[in-house]
């Protein structure tokens, strides 16, 4: 049982103490965590991004082009001044334009087109009944969920309303599965800490 492990274990127990009720020890450790995370991130961003990509090329005279995006980034801080706040719009406009132009087509393919073609390819590839069933359920789920979000208004007609109602069931299944997986994730984190306490700290588990 070394000193680092003991300190880590005591900090873990301090965080767990919140489960009983809020207390000063928990508050201290919570702030310690936030402070450490922010400090660590800032230092790392400085050494891993700001220095090698901006300062170093300028200091050794190899490139000055990085000063342009750096200056644009600095303009974002203009929002703290009521006089110069309007300058923030310039880098924001550039970021949005570059973001939409660069990422838009790629994301459309990743998030929509590839998933639709993936289903068709699977059905064509296997030709099995279960794949046709999978494709049918996917198609019905897609249309029903979409109609819930876009067409499920009063006076939309019985068919659309029925489809929207069906969409809510598909959503419920999705949310149920997501929450189930999320619970699994959170329990895993708890198990990880217990494993640390019993194995690494107390040595109760071999």
């Amino acid at each position, binding site marked *: 049982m070394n000193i680092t492990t003991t300190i880590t274990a005591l900090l873990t127990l301090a965080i767990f103490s919140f489960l009983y009720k809020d207390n000063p020890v928990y508050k201290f450790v919570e702030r310690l965590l936030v402070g450490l995370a922010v400090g660590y991130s800032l230092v*790392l961003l400085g050494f891993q991004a700001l220095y090698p990509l901006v300062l170093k090329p300028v200091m050794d005279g190899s490139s000055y082009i990085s000063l342009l995006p750096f200056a644009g980034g600095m303009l974002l801080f203009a929002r703290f001044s009521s006089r110069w706040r309007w300058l923030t719009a310039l880098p924001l406009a550039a970021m949005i334009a570059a973001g939409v132009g660069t990422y838009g087509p790629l994301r459309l393919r990743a998030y929509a087109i590839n998933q639709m073609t993936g289903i068709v390819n699977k059905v064509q590839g296997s030709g099995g009944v279960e794949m046709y069933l999978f494709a049918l359920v996917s198609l019905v789920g897609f249309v029903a969920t979409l109609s819930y979000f876009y067409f499920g208004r009063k006076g939309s007609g019985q068919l659309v309303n029925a489809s929207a109602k069906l969409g809510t069931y598909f959503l419920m299944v999705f949310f149920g599965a997501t929450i189930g997986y999320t619970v699994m994730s959170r329990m895993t984190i708890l*198990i990880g800490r217990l494993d640390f306490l019993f194995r690494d700290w107390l040595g109760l588990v071999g």
Partner: protein
Amino acid sequence: MSEQNKITSALRDRRRVFLGLAIVMVISVLGPFKSEVTISEPVQETYDYIESLDSSSVIMVSFDFESSSFPEMKPLATALLEHLFRKQVKVVALSLFPEGAGLAAGVLQRSADERNLVYGKDYVFLGMKPQAQAAILGLGQSVVETFPDDYYGTPLAELPLMNGVTNLNSFDAVLSIADGDSPSHWVAYGKIRYGVTVLAAVAASMMTSFDAYYYGSGDLAGLIGGLRGAAEYETLLGYRGMGARSLPALSGAHMYLALIIIIGNLISWRSRRKARG
């Protein structure tokens, strides 16, 4: 007080629910329980893909997680690195999150030290770059321009492993070990833009976002999810790590929570029925 009211008031104090969970978990962690593991198709495909690589292969491993999910990510990262290093695959690692960089450095070094691997020759840690999209697109053009130096400040030109590496296409695949949606960035900007194969190991909470969508569409060549996925992978590798060790506790916790949900719903149903008369 009726039996139902007693249960209701007991459940209303969340500390009792937590205490019950703690008891179940402690018994499961300390007890001699074992869970049987069946291998799912996405995990098998990930294993098969890495199994098909050899000592001439270079893979990029992106540690896209933060400290809050480390207990879930560590078993996944350890099992995958064990397989890669066992196959003598060269690993070039990075992180898209500041906290992930520090955690990745530790996991990578421990796994490499177990096999006496040489830094710079068998594996390299590039460090961290913020803004995932820009970092991935930058890597697609040039690794050395995106990461002029490695995590420890060594210029990439001085690392023998990086000699043949120019951009994302120099890698056999990218493996994203993530607690969030980073694999979707790797698919959009790595696979679709530059054609690199992408594998993912994600937190269980992200499985619904990746299983049907990205793995189902074929954008991900392999997918492992959560502690359960880690346990499956450890079984394929033939050892019992934290994934397999923790499965009984996970099952115990799930059963306890399912029981609480059932009791809560029964109470709610009975109360509504009573109110209706």
